[in-house]
């Protein structure tokens, strides 16, 4: 019945041609929702976003369209979500970089500028070497690097990114000096690794899944407390001999502009949770080796607050800490 009234309302609105203000329609959503992805099409975040909303129509009654708004390490897209009209029709993927913008002095933008919806995934870093590398374990690499400071080349996906900070904080704690080689994303990093141009690569563990399965590289350790279900034979960082009490994770989540009306937020939170639990999405994440972790808005906020605390010393150790006050 309600649905019918909503439909009639819609029809009426169409006949007039427009509704003058938003928010007249009581039902939400009445038109397609836009999901802004701050990274380019074809990348990891984009793929997850598209997979997540593939069946959104089932849960929202409308489509959720992914729109890529790229640039500035995600600051452009994420910033545009934070300042969008808070009517609930624009939501955005928020990613790890959001935790670093303020700390690195890049943009005055943090999780506090959003009405958080949920956490989607949390990936640990992995350290891998080429299949033909002389090193079999992380300990061998660290020992060699200790004796020859600044010789071992470590590729990562960009300065100040999660993987750079993950390996840098391990290196700092263990007093090892690496020669860091920044690449522009995960794909060139792993290509450089299997091409033999760098000694060690830090990437998300899911990002090297295919090459690992094909036997083209060896994963020395995963930077987490537990082993990864898809890589049962890869030791955790502690098992490899370098305990790490606060590992840095890459994360992706969903947020809406601050100030979206409560009832609409409820719809969004419920709808995206259903999308998140959709068997098709779960299956895809499984294939990708992507550890899905759900956190509700409160839990998500707590996680992000903790993240900033972990990142501060890590950024300091690589000389990138320049917080905006």
């Amino acid at each position, binding site marked *: 019945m309600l649905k019918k009234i909503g439909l009639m309302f819609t029809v009426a609105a169409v006949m007039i041609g427009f509704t003058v203000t938003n928010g007249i329609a009581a039902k939400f959503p009445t038109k*397609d929702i836009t999901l802004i992805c701050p990274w380019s099409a074809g990348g990891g975040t984009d793929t997850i976003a598209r997979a997540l909303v593939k069946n959104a129509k089932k849960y929202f009654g409308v489509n959720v369209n992914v729109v890529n708004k790229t640039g500035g390490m995600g600051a452009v897209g994420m910033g545009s979500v934070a300042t969008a009209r808070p009517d609930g029709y624009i939501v955005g993927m928020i990613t790890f970089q959001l935790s670093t913008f303020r700390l690195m002095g890049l943009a005055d933008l943090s999780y506090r500028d959003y009405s958080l919806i949920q956490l989607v995934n949390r990936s640990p870093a992995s350290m891998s070497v080429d299949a033909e590398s002389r090193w079999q374990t992380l300990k061998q690499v660290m020992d060699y690097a200790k004796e020859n400071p600044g010789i071992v080349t470590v590729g990562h996906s960009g300065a100040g990114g999660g993987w750079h900070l993950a390996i840098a904080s391990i290196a700092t704690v263990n007093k090892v000096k690496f020669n860091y080689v*920044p690449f522009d994303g995960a794909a060139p990093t792993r290509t450089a690794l299997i091409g033999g141009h760098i000694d060690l690569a830090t990437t998300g563990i899911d990002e090297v899944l295919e090459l690992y399965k094909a036997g083209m590289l060896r994963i020395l350790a995963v930077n987490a407390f537990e082993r990864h279900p898809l890589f049962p034979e890869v030791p955790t960082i502690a098992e490899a001999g370098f305990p790490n009490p606060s590992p840095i994770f890459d994360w992706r989540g969903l947020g809406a502009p601050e100030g979206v009306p409560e009832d609409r937020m409820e719809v969004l939170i419920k709808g995206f949770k259903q999308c998140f639990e959709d068997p098709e999405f779960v299956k895809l994440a499984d294939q990708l080796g992507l550890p899905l972790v759900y956190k509700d808005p409160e839990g998500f906020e707590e996680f992000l607050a903790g993240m900033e605390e972990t990142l501060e010393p890590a950024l300091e150790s690589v000389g990138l800490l*320049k917080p905006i006050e």
Partner: protein
Amino acid sequence: MLKRADMKRADIGAGIGLIILGTWIFWYSDAYRKVVVYIYGPNFFPQILSTLMVLCGVTLVVRAMRGKALAKRDRIDRQGFVRTVIAIGICIGYLYLMQVIGFAMGTSVFLFVLMTFLGQQGLMKRVISSIVTSLAVWAMFRYFLVIPLPTGMFDFTF
């Protein structure tokens, strides 16, 4: 040759401009040295480029002085230039208008005004071509490519 003298002046001006710009960039990017994480930091590439730019500027000035400037082939038509500036003004107005009355309507107005300004004859021809174009592109973006366009105050319900 008058035109060559024209170009000579322009070349000397541009050369000096390049020298100043290059020096400024070199100086400005030197500040990035402080935030160095790597030996070849963010200042490295801009400083190479600005050095080359200064060199090019010097060469340009020297060549022009020696009378080696190219002869100019084409000059800006004054009347046409004014027309261009006005057209740019109309376009800037359109960018603001679009955000108030929406993409489809704003575009129709813009096209019609610009066509009229350029002196296109036939009222119906102008009206039809501007409306058809804006509607076609609007529909393509909205329904085929699903790209959000400014809606303005008339927020379509779906």
